[in-house]
C-alpha cells in the first residue's frame, strides 16, 4: 500500500515516516490500525490500498453515528461524568494558576468575587469527583 504523510513527521510504533509518500509492503495488522487512526486524524492519507487493506482500515474507525450513540449511552449510564468532572478540575486549576501569574491591573485578572466563585466550584466538583467511581 502507499500512504502520504501530511505532516513533517508521523510516527507509528517503531516506524517513523517523514512527510511525503511512502510505499509499505505487506503492512501488519497492527500497522494497518495505526495507519487507519492516523488517516482518520488527518496525519496521513491513504494513496493506494488493496481491497483487503481498505477493509481492515475501515473496520478500525468508529463512525460518527456510532460514536454519538456511545456518547448518549455513556451519559445515560453516568459513565461520562467521571471524565467530565476530572476535566473540569483540570480546567479550573489551570485558570486559577494562570490568574496567579497576572499583575493586578491585567484585564484577564479575575476580580475577587469571581475568583472566590471559581475556587468554590473547584472545591464542590473535586468533592463530587472523589465520590465518583473511576470507570474501569
Amino acid at each position, binding site marked *: 500500500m502507499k500512504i502520504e504523510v501530511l505532516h513533517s513527521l508521523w*510516527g507509528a510504533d517503531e516506524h517513523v515516516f517523514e512527510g511525503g509518500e511512502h510505499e509499505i509492503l505487506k503492512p501488519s495488522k497492527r500497522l494497518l490500525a495505526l495507519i487507519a487512526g492516523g488517516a482518520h486524524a488527518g496525519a496521513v492519507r491513504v494513496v493506494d490500498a488493496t481491497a483487503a487493506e481498505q477493509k481492515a482500515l475501515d473496520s478500525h474507525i468508529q463512525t460518527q453515528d456510532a460514536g454519538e450513540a456511545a456518547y448518549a449511552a455513556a451519559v445515560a449510564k453516568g459513565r461520562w461524568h467521571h471524565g467530565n468532572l476530572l476535566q473540569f478540575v483540570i480546567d479550573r486549576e489551570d485558570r486559577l494558576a494562570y490568574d496567579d501569574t497576572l499583575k493586578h491591573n491585567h484585564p484577564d485578572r479575575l476580580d475577587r468575587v469571581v475568583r472566590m466563585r471559581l475556587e468554590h466550584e473547584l472545591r464542590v466538583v473535586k468533592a463530587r469527583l472523589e465520590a465518583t467511581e473511576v470507570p474501569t
Partner: protein
Amino acid sequence: MSVVASDLVAYHAATQSDVDGSTVGGAIDTLRRPDFTQLAANDTLEVVSSAAGDTTQTVTVEGRDSQGRIVSQTVTLTGTTAVAFGTLGTVERVLKCEMSATAAGTVTLRRSDHTTAVRAIPIGERGFSMVFRKGTSSTSGAVDYYAKVFWKNTNGANALLSAQVIESADPSATITHGLAASVNDSGTTTNRQTAPGGVTFAGTAANVPGTDLASGAAIGVWLNMHLATNNAAIRSTYTSGIQGSTT
C-alpha cells in the same frame, strides 16, 4: 438538581478547518471539545486509560516540535499502562488529539511528568483540538479567521436562566465572539476566512437567544481571530465562559 458549572460543556462544531477553502461550522459535535491545558513548557507526552480493556483504540496526537514543525504520532492504547509518544519526541505545543473509537475508560493525555494533564477525554467522546490551530498572518493585509464552538447545558433537568456567553480570558487580545441566532443551530460559513452571516462580533457578554439555555440545549458561539499585517507569531490561549442563574 440545580445547574452547576461542570454541567456547562464546550464542544466543537461538526466541521472545523485548519486549511482555507473548506466549510466551517455546522451542528454541535459532542465527540470533540475545543478546550485543553496547553503545555507550559516543552515536554514529551503519554496517554493512559482508566480501563484495562482499552487496548484496541488508537490515539493520534498532532503538535509542533521545538522547530515549529507539525509532527504527529499514532499509538495504540494499552489499558491502564501509559503509552509514551516516543517518536513524537519533545513537543512545544499540542494541536490536536483524536481517538479512532470511544473508550471504556476515561482517557487522559498528559505530560510525561505524570502530574500535568493536557486533557481528560470522558467516556463516549473521541478527542479535542485547538481552535485556530493553523492560521497565519499575511504580508499584504490583515486576516480574519472564523471558527464555531458550542456551549451545551448537560444538566438533565434544569435550564440555565438568563444565560450569557462571556470572554473569560483573551491574553492576546485578538479574538472576539458572537452568538448564533438561535440555539441548537447548524449554521455554517463558506470557509474559515469568511464571516458567518448575521453574527455580530464583540468582546462583551452576549445574551443567549431566548434568554435561557434549556436542559440539553446548546448555543453556537462563533469566534473571530483578527491578525494584523505581519502579525507576530502567537502562542496563547482564549477562555470562553457561560454564566447565568439556576433554580
